[in-house]
């Protein structure tokens, strides 16, 4: 293309009294805030729903199934719009909830369906005998889950959960659709204002990569910390 780099644009004033670099860092902060909070929602809700889907109680199991199917059969962007435009139109009190909170729940619940699927798979991967053994020892059902099933199941599903955690960083880009000032919005806006799209997108790409990669490393660290010698995933 014969284009020359101009990285100086990041030091230029954006017209509002801050440089593009400062703006990009603030946008990165928004991206990480959305992603991390949504991840907390996804892991907590997803684990609970996943567990519910494996209990003997028919009603609870049905609720878990319904939750999972509801949130994984609607595209993420559509869900964000439902939370932002449709639900507040029905429940007017939700109108004053900041879009940041709405998008955290939208992204968190969307991902919770995927987490629940993995948690369920993790529990079902355990031999049936473990559940019976727990119960036969006189543990209650919650105790069987707490002390026998979940410690093993969660160790098994750490690798797929790592992928979900990284996906949440990347999926947080949808937040721009409801005016959260995160990285994707910064990229679209700054490239229009500076006409230096290549530099802006390269920088933003780098930040996304770094964020997802850090999550990946943290998850790997946890995986190694909690591994039990001689079990699945502990082969290295």
């Amino acid at each position: 293309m014969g284009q020359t780099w101009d990285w100086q644009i990041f030091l230029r004033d954006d017209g509002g009294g801050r440089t593009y670099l400062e703006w990009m860092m603030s946008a990165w902060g928004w991206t990480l805030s959305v992603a991390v909070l949504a991840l907390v929602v996804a892991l907590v809700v997803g684990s609970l729903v996943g567990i519910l889907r494996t209990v003997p109680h028919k009603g609870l199991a049905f609720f878990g199934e319904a939750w999972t199917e509801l949130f994984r059969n609607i595209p993420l962007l559509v869900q964000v719009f439902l939370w932002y435009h449709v639900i507040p139109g029905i429940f007017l009190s939700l109108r004053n909830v900041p879009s940041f909170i709405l998008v955290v729940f939208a992204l968190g619940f969307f991902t919770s369906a995927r987490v629940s699927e993995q948690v369920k798979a993790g529990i079902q991967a355990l031999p049936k005998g473990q559940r019976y053994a727990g119960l036969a020892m006189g543990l209650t059902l919650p105790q069987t889950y707490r002390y026998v099933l979940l410690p093993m199941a969660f160790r098994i599903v750490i690798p797929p959960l790592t992928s979900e955690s990284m996906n949440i960083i990347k999926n947080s880009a949808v937040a721009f659709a409801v005016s959260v000032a995160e990285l994707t919005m910064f990229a679209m806006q700054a490239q229009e204002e500076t006409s230096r799209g290549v530099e802006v997108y390269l920088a933003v790409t780098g930040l996304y990569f770094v964020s997802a990669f850090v999550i990946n490393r943290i998850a790997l660290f946890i995986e190694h910390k909690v591994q039990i010698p001689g079990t699945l995933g502990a082969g290295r």
Partner: protein
Amino acid sequence: MKKTLLALVAVLAVGVAHADTLKKIKDSGSITLGARESSGALAYTLGDGKYVGFHTEMSQRIAADLQKQLGLPKLDVKFQVVTSQNRVPLVQNGTVDLECGSTTNNATRQKDVSFAVTTYMEEVRIAVKANSGINSIKDLTGKTVATTTGTTSVQTLRKHERANNVDFKEVFGKDHADSFLLLESGRADAFVMDGQILAGNISKAKNPADFKIVGEVLSIEPIACMLRKDDPAFKKAVDDSIKGMIKSGELAKLYDKWFMQPIPPSNTKVGLPLSQATKDAWANPNDRPMEDFAKK
């Protein structure tokens, strides 16, 4: 392998070679025009590979004039869709010969490309609900203002906020339809955007009388056709064609067709009369960048 390498070198050589668009058009018997999919009445698509609008039709007339000038019996006019993100590189690397959409002529872009004479002056305005009581930018204090991500209006708004100490909350739609929905649904009290986009959205609203455009012009931006840099012969040919259309009144007729008459696909009127700024630009054709029009 050698052949691929040779082809690669040839492609690179074309990339750096001095731009001579007229020769390229003459040799290939074709011209590629940049097309926009949703730049309001200036340039938009009807789907199915049909591109229309004030600037799109103007660029077709320019192509016809070029054909006449070059004495070509037949000129193949192709359209290539461009976006805000890729329009400058596509003109630079020769994919698109002439881009007439909604590109603002500014000093930053002039480093990379050239512009024909200004054919439309965009005015950034404020749209509000008709019963909102907002009549100027000062009334926006404490209000929520919507604008669209990836537009220069965001920057304009930021500068105004800083300069006039008007404290408002900003929300950003991901596209113009989204921003208008923010205004329509009450999530925003005002929508700040290019006048023709505001007028277009209002005309397509369920009840256009519910909205109005108010207040001062927040900024003026010259919109012009973009072409490759350092190609004076091509620029002159394009400029002459446009000047001819201004003189013959053809450009005014085109403006009337796209801004004052019902247009497809919905057959509604944008209803935005020719502004004084655009009249001035036509009376005295020039390619001055936006920075020259900055207020005081």
